[in-house]
């Protein structure tokens, strides 16, 4: 029986499935990053947020309305003295 013919000297054929898996993974990571940027007004999501960061982000939301917006003014708006980040819930039960 004749030997099966080998196509190339170094076998590259097994690498094609790996490239496909790599491409799918890259598209997945790109898609997740794009969706997070869309949700967070063009910025990546904050990660490893500890208690300090949570309190600072709450202060940011009181100053600018959303945790993703930053402002660098000298003085705070007058509403900052009395506003809060506590949600008012309508009683339903």
């Amino acid at each position, binding site marked *: 029986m004749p030997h099966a013919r080998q196509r190339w000297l170094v076998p590259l054929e097994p690498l094609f499935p790996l490239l496909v898996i790599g491409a799918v993974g890259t598209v997945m990571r790109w898609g997740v990053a794009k969706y997070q940027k869309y949700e967070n007004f063009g910025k990546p999501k904050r990660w490893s947020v500890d208690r300090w960061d949570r309190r600072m982000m709450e202060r940011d939301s009181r100053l600018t309305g959303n945790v993703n917006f*930053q*402002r*660098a003014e000298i*003085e*705070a708006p007058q509403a900052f003295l009395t506003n809060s980040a506590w*949600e008012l819930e309508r009683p339903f039960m």
Partner: protein
Amino acid sequence: MTTHREGTFVEGLWVEPAQLSSETAPSVAEVGCTSAPLESMAFHFASFCKKYNDDFVKCKNESQDPKHCLKEGRKVTRCALDLIGKLKENCDAQWTKHWECLDMNNHTLFKCRKEEKEFNDCVFKRLGLTKVIPETAEGATPIHLKEQPLYK
């Protein structure tokens, strides 16, 4: 019920209706910067307002009551407002670039060393402040000045 959960059927945020009394009302405006600009100017604030900060910390060490340290707190706020005004006047572009970079990188300082260097140079030239990291070992380069921080 004291369980922490997100509100369902949320209708707005709580606004404090009671006016501030004259003894708790601040006679100085609150600082209007959010977290990224404050983080980038933190070390310069430490050296610019050192004496007021030390007074405030000493006062807080005496008692944790908020009413006890209002006067020292107002001095710190006034100094911070002064510094922010000076930064906006002198180094606005470099400061903005640095805190925008921080904003995109999860507020980690090590990702924005280039912008930080430009900002520190501008601040040193115009205002004479250097960034000093307290408690660095004697003779060791501070981490923000190391050329290759990932190597020993």
